[in-house]
Structures are given as C-alpha cells and as structure tokens.
C-alpha cells in the first residue's frame, strides 16, 4: 500500500457568521496517497475550498484529525502552521495572486525569503522554477505585462520554488481560456507524473478534472461514494 500524504478523520468544520453557525463539513474522512493528482469537484457551497484550506493548513477543523505529510495540523498553532506551510505546501490560486509591483522572478522568490538562502541562490532557484514552467524569458516582467496563462505559470513556479511535497490548487484554470487552461493543466500533470508532486485541485470544470488521476465529488459537506457524481 502506497504512503498516505493526506489523512482526514471525521472532520467537522463549521463557521459562525453573525449569530448563525454554518456547518460546512460533516464527518469527512479521506486518504490521499503520496504522488496522487486528485481533482475535487462539486457544486458551489459543497465545501471543496474549505476542505482544500484544511489540507493546506490555512484553516483548522472544528473537530477531527487531519494529518498532512506526517504532521497533525489540528495540533499546530498559528505560527506552527505558518512554518509548516512554508516548508511543505505550494499554493496556486484562481486569480494567480501575484504581487503586482514585483517582477515574475521576485514573485517566485517570495517563499525563499523565509529560508536562509543567499540572494544569488534565491535568484538561481527562482529562475530554475520559471524555467521548469517554461516562462524564464518573462522573468523580468511584471504581472500586468503577462497573459493569464503566463501569470498562472509564474504562480505555479512560486508554488514549486521551495520544493513542497504537496501542491494545493484552487480552481487554477478558472480564469483562463481553454487553451491556456489545458497548458496549465498539462504542466500540473507533468509536475505530478515526472516530478512526483502530489496535487489536490479544486475545479468546477470536468475537462480539467480529467487531467487528474482521481476525481472526488463533494456535496453538502460530504464526499460522495467513489464513482458517484451528482446528476
């Protein structure tokens, strides 16, 4: 049996908005083996992004156990989660979330500011990551000078540069045209297959989900049975 990188046990998550408590996840249990590319699908409000946030250590469950890369995240403090994220997780967002005033290279260097690497080494690693995603020639360009597809490649380079075990992608192609989306998804597939990165990707797009090695469907805060989809 292959090593499990993400393990969730009886996860409940509820938010309080005003005086109302909203249950988003209920009793969710899930294992994701290392090296898997998982597409998380489901309608809006089904809890996909909440689940992704929990796996990425951005949020903590109301109850239940969550272990990612051997670390119990539900036991970590806010500062502990920050350090853990810096070393283990790469994030890719729907709207790229690049710093508009920094060049592509400086954007990619951001996670490395938290390391003890020298300026030269940081720069070299950033260029290597940009080369890996095929956009090294745009290293000196600012986000406003890049197309959506190029910006998302820069965001993926930023997610990769610290060499995390797990990439967490929230609708990474949601803002892209079909061609650019396919290029980005193909890139994620290469990172999974050739570089061994485990990937959890939230998407609404069935075509995007086809690039994954496993599809999971959520509804009303729970995972549907394997092979089941909403009709």
């Amino acid at each position, binding site marked *: 049996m292959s090593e499990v990188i993400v393990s969730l046990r009886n996860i409940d998550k509820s938010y309080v908005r005003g005086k109302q408590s909203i249950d988003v996840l209920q009793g969710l249990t899930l294992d994701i083996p290392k090296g898997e590319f998982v597409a998380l699908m489901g309608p809006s409000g089904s809890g996909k992004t909440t689940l992704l946030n929990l796996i990425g250590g951005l949020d903590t469950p109301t109850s239940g156990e969550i272990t990612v890369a051997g670390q119990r995240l539900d036991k970590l403090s806010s500062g502990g989660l*920050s*350090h853990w994220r810096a070393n283990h997780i790469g994030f890719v*967002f729907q709207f790229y979330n690049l710093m508009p005033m920094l060049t592509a290279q400086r954007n990619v260097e951001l996670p490395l500011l938290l390391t003890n690497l020298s300026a030269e080494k940081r720069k070299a690693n950033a260029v290597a990551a940009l080369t890996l995603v095929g956009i090294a020639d745009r290293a000196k360009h600012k986000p406003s000078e890049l197309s959506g597809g190029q910006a998302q490649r820069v965001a993926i380079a930023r997610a990769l540069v610290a060499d995390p075990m797990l990439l967490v992608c929230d609708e990474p192609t949601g803002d892209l045209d079909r061609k650019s989306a396919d290029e980005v998804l193909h890139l994620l597939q290469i990172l999974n297959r050739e570089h061994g990165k485990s990937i959890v990707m939230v998407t609404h797009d069935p075509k995007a989900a086809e690039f994954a090695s496993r599809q999971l469907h959520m509804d009303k805060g729970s995972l549907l049975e394997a092979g089941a989809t909403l009709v």
Partner: protein
Amino acid sequence: MKYFPLIWATLWRKKTRTLFTLLSVVIAFLLFGMLETVDYAFSHPSAGTTGADKLISTNKYSITLPLPFADLQEIRSVPGVTDATWLTWLGAYYQESKNFVFALPIDTESYFNVHKDEFIVSDEQMKNYRGTRSGALVNVALMKKFGWKVGEKLPVHSTIWTQKNGSLDWTFDIVGTFDVKDSTQANAQAYTVFFHYDLFDEGRSFGKGTVGWIEERIDNPANAAAIAGKIDALFANSPNETKTQPANDFAMTFIKQIGDIGFVLRAILGAVFFTLLFLTGNTMMQSVRERIPELAVLKTLGFTDGKVLALVIAESLLLCLFAAVIGLGLSYATLPIIGQALQGVQLDPVALIPGLGAAVLLALIVGFPPAWRAMRLNIVDALSGLH
C-alpha cells in the same frame, strides 16, 4: 536586508500617492529642522559671552529698564567678584533696519579685563582705539560683510538713543578690527562694534548715570549661584532691584524678550505633526486596506503574523525616515539663511538629530494600527474577500 526590495516595491505600489505623502513628510521635517534649530539656539545660548566665570546683573523686572551706574562700585565689593564692567544696548543698524549692528558702548579697561583673552586685536589698533574718542573696533566678519575699511567713518542709526541734538544717528571712526579666540563664539560676535562708553554717555540726551547691565567676572564658577545671590541681596528692596544670572542664561533672557519662542515654535510643530499624523496614518491604512489579498498571500506562503506586522511597520519606517532625512537635509541647507535672518544667533546642526527620533516615533504611531490589522488578518476570510 533581504526584505528591502519587497518593502521598497510595496511602498511605491501607488506612486503618486506615495510621492505626495513623501512630500508632505519632507516639508514637515524641513519645517521641523528649521524651527528646532532656532529653538535649540534659543535654549542653548552662546551669544554675547563665553565661560562659566561670568555673571550678568540686570534690572530685576525688565532688561529694558536701566540700573544706576553707582551699583557698579557696590558689586565690585562683593567677595568673589574680581572685576566688573558696564554696558548699554544701543539698538543700532547700518543704513537699513535689516542691517543689524550690535554696537556696544564699553569701558575699555574694565571690559577687556572682564573678557580677558577672548578677543584678538593688534597692539597698534588697540592703541589707536584707546587714543581716538570716536574710535570703533569692528568685528572682522562685519567689516567683510559690508566691505568697510579701517579709517572709514561708520554711521549707524539707533532705535533708542537720541543725541543731544535730537539725532538718532551716531558716527564712529573705524580704527581697528577684532576677532574672537574661541571659534564657537564667531557667530555670536559677528555683528559687534565696540565704541567708547564716554562718547555714548556724554552724547545721549537722556539716561545719563545709568547703565543697561553690569557684567562681572568671578573667581570661581562653582560659587556663581552664591555670588549672584549676594549681589542681588545688595539691592533687595531698593528702587532698582537686580537679577544676577550666569552670562549664558542672560543671553536667553535677552532673546526671550520677544516672547516664549520655544512655546511658539513647539506649538507650530505640534500642529504640523498632528496634521501629518492623520495624513500619513490615513495613507498607511488605505495602503494596507488595498493590499489585504496580497498580505493574505504572504501569510499563505508561510509569513508569520509577526513577520507581516514587521513588514508593514518597516514600510512605515522607510517612508518616514526617507522623507525625514530629505527634509532635515534641506533644513540643514537653509541654516545659513536662517542664521542671517536671526542675526547673532548661533545655529547648531546638532538640533536636527531629534528629527530622526521624531521620524521613528511618527512611523511607529502611523504604522502600528495598519500593521496590527495586517497581523490579525484571517487568511481564509481575506482570500475570499470577506475583509
């Protein structure tokens, strides 16, 4: 240092806004530098006299009120007083009122005894001065400023003292020049003209037998307070009570006749910085508000709460210190102009140093609220646009 490019780039994210904020802070610190230097000069006086071994006695109630000449002998009899001299304020200018001249009638012997080893005058010129009743010794800097030459007539206009013929104009013969030995006194003495007290006393139409103030040399600076007390006790309950104080304090009293300069300057600065606090504070708040998703991304990448707090405060520090250094630098460049306007007041650039402290304080005050907000940012809410 590795965070500098990020902080610098963030600062210039909205170039126009940052530029205008920077300009406001630069102007505030330019003003701060100018006013603080003047305030410092007024509260650290050096004009007129040097050393701790001198006291000055004035009328207790106002420096503009005279003292009887007869007080001099009594003061000389006080133990500890080694010599005393008397002076009066002529209140003069040359040709135009902006050309202030510190024309000082002196008793040659006693004045140069009290101010022993403070001035450089050639023997020949001192001899000429002693031998010429209308003679004047002029500071070398003043000679140079107006292009005067030894041997020329020096007409000055007094704003106080009329002559017997009703004229306010007094004319002297420049018979020599003097310089100061202590270079720190160069500015203080830059406008001084010495002339004979006899000429002044005989020429003036009123106030004969009175003096403006009396300066004493004492044997031990450590006894200054006790000696001053003894002098004032001599004239207690007389019609002309005295106030005796160290020479440097006297200079401050003299300048403060025009009001509490320090209070006025600090009030202006207070108003400027109060306004600046809101302006810069608002800019920082707005800047952070606009960057909430970016700050959330930094946190997502692993920047801790403390690191995000430090980044925003560093940004505020960079803005305020950068602008303060420019503003204080500009005010340093204006010192000669201010010095000219405040003739005789010595301006010291050391007064600019607290400006850097003020910049740090300003940065912390305006930077902390947005930094705190950034630190407390909930990543999930910020990324979903709930902040």
